[in-house]
């Protein structure tokens, strides 16, 4: 029924094919969500903001934007694997980050060496992710599983800490929280490193490719020998580790951990992933995009802060931005 190009007359099809390719390339560039668009939008928003708000591009403000985007960004970047694999999102990032912050602050506060505290904390949060991944691999809905896991983790943390602040109380933390090699805050460097690592895992490794295949078509992935259950465990371990790291970053910067932290983290992270352009259905997107999404959201928030926009209004704008991007990118992709 459909024309089979490879069976067509070779001489006749050469010119046609070249034209086809050019047309395809052009439409790929203009398609909403093409890779070049997000950086361009970030730069345009920065220039526009600088015009209406003097001081927007001051070094301090840029640093502030990057610092606020790093915590969300680290989680968004590690969340991308979950979304790419077709398991939508983890809804337990808030509580996992809190667990990471509390555990790390407590360990450091009770004189554990910082490096050891870091490794222990990451191992514990990763374990919570593995458990959630196993449950999802068995066949439970990822949204419900992570929602429930978040409740359990949050309840445990609140119960054990009695909702009291835990102070890190140690000067040796300063390098993590406040060091600024070359004027770049440590948390921003961590954000950059995590982005590079996750992007490499996603595009350059077998497990990353298996994640993508699972998200693109999980039935076909099973038939192609992709261990889809292992993929589920790995992606949920990744997002939990990223969330825990975000908790450590926050506790280090502030010098304490409190159950009041991370109140809007999960929504911010999902917003960053979606604004970055990773497909909700999975199979398309990248951690790098989510990093861009986190920076763009942080940039717009900064603009509103500098112009004394109320917090309610800021939430409204962020919500509207997510809706607009979904309308633009994601609805086009639904088959």
């Amino acid at each position, binding site marked *: 029924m459909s024309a089979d190009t490879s069976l067509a007359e070779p001489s006749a099809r050469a010119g046609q094919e070249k034209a086809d390719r050019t047309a395809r390339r052009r439409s790929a560039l203009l398609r909403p969500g093409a890779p070049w668009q997000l950086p361009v939008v970030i730069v345009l928003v920065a220039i526009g903001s600088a015009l209406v708000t003097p001081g927007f591009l001051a070094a301090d403000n840029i640093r502030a934007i990057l610092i606020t985007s790093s915590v969300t960004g680290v989680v968004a970047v590690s969340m991308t694997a979950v979304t790419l694999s077709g398991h939508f999102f983890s809804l337990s990032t808030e509580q996992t980050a809190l667990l990471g912050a509390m555990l790390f602050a407590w360990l450091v506060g009770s004189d554990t060496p910082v490096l050891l505290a870091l490794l222990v904390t990451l191992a514990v949060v990763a374990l919570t992710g593995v458990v959630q991944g196993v449950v999802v691999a068995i066949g439970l809905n990822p949204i419900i599983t992570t929602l429930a896991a978040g409740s359990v983790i949050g309840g445990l943390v609140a119960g054990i800490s009695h909702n009291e602040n835990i102070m890190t109380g140690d000067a040796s933390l300063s390098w993590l929280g406040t060091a600024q090699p070359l004027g770049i805050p440590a948390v921003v460097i961590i954000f950059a490193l995590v982005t590079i690592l996750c992007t490499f895992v996603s595009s350059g490794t*077998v497990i990353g490719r298996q994640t993508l*295949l699972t998200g693109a078509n999980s039935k076909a992935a099973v038939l192609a020998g992709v261990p889809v259950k292992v993929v589920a465990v790995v992606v949920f371990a990744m997002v939990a580790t990223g969330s825990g790291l975000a908790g450590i970053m926050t506790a280090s910067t502030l010098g304490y951990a409190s159950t009041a932290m991370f109140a809007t983290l999960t929504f911010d992270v999902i917003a960053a992933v979606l604004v970055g352009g990773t497909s909700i259905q999975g199979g398309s997107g990248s951690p790098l995009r989510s990093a861009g999404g986190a920076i763009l959201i942080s940039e717009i928030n900064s603009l509103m802060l500098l112009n004394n926009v109320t917090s309610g209004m800021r939430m409204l704008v962020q919500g509207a931005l997510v809706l607009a991007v979904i309308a633009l990118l994601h609805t086009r992709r639904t088959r």
Partner: protein
Amino acid sequence: MTEGPLSVEVRGVSKRYGAVTALDDVDFELRPGEVMALLGQNGAGKSTLVKVLSGLVAPDSGTVSIAGAPVALRSSSRSQGLGIAVVQQEYSSVPNLTIAENLVLGQASAPAVWSKRRLATQAREHLGRVGLAGLDPLTFVSELSVAERQLVEIARVLSRDARILLFDEPTAALSDAEIARVLGVVRSLAEDGRSIIYVTHRLPEVFAVADRVTIFRDGRSLAPVATSELDVDAIVTLMLGRKLDVLFPERSETSSDPLLVVDQLKSAGLSTPASLVVRSGEILGLTGQMGSGAGAPVRAIAGCDPVETGTVTVAGEQVSLAHRSSGIGSGIAYCSSDRQLDGIFAGLTIQKNLSSPWLGDVSRRGVLSPTAERRLAQDAATRFAIDVKRLGSDVATLSGGNQQKVALGRWTAGSARVLLVEEPTRGVDVGARAEIYHRLRLLCEQGLAVVVASSDTAEVFGLCDRIGTFSRGELTALRDHDEWTEAELVRQVMHSGAAGAA
């Protein structure tokens, strides 16, 4: 049989899909109160005619008359309005609703608000007509057997007061006793004066239920013949003579060492253990009707279906059948029948599709090698005549035939030694079809062992070196190609299951 206008009269109907002629100047007639069997091989045009009559497909030319009056069947609701109804297969009922609720589904006259009791009373009447009087209409459909669901489907059609019923292979999934029940209901409906078109692949059912038989061949219709004037051989002869519109590649010499050995395999879909041997350089064909189990060994060897007993070895090494990935590790490639559903990663590039089963071969310590992946993809693309310059394009931008080539071609890269293919050319146009046969034969010549499971007997007969037939989950015959004639193969497939089948 009552005299008067024909219930259905089709004259000179043609339907083309692109280069494919599905119906070519077809005539068809159906008298009131008669059961007309519609027979023909795959692709002969039976289902297209069913679609025309049910209003799903508009013919390019020709006329359809219902009860003597010419009609235009522009939509399925128009067709329903004229009293035509298609009895869907059993799985079109909604399991989580009761029988009574299922009966009113999709009915234009259904009330917006209904009471359970009123629905149940109506339902009871219709259930009685299909021999299900003993069933409580408030039973959930999920609790019924397959045959009962099929009968509920019929009741659903009756509740719309259809005068012309189309049955499209209604017994594919049923046991003998259940078939007898369905056939009994079909007969009694005809005695009520309804007209019935009965599409099937099973000859015993034709003789049990049909008054006359219309045979389709290559999109053309033969004149109807009374069943009493026919026997099995006559029907098979009428059905054959299909044009050789597809050129099959020549068979080559088969080397003698067995590559794939399947011993006493029993898995989902097989009622009796099956043993098979496939040599390197050989194509084994497995064929049978829908639900016959011809595809079952293939899925089990691939590691997709749970296996009860039996062993599989490739080149003497035993293969674990627990997972698809362990099969791939042993060099067993498997291509499922529904490639749109589970053979293609739409949205990903052709290269990523081609390399998907062989990530272990193009990586080192878990890190992908872009050059190795590209080389593997180019290799597979060249072998299956896929445009190498388009490896970076989304596979979904390819035509259907080319997508099939990607789905099949990816298994020829990497370390495949055995290739299992279900329905290799379902939904493929003639050009791509010949090419796929040609490529399969080439792979064989490179030393692969190929197993093709297909319900298309012409394809199996034309392509394969050895052919096994299945019926009711049992391997009923396994012979070299030269020991079969096509007529014998068709008869074996259509008639086995009846007592003393040849």
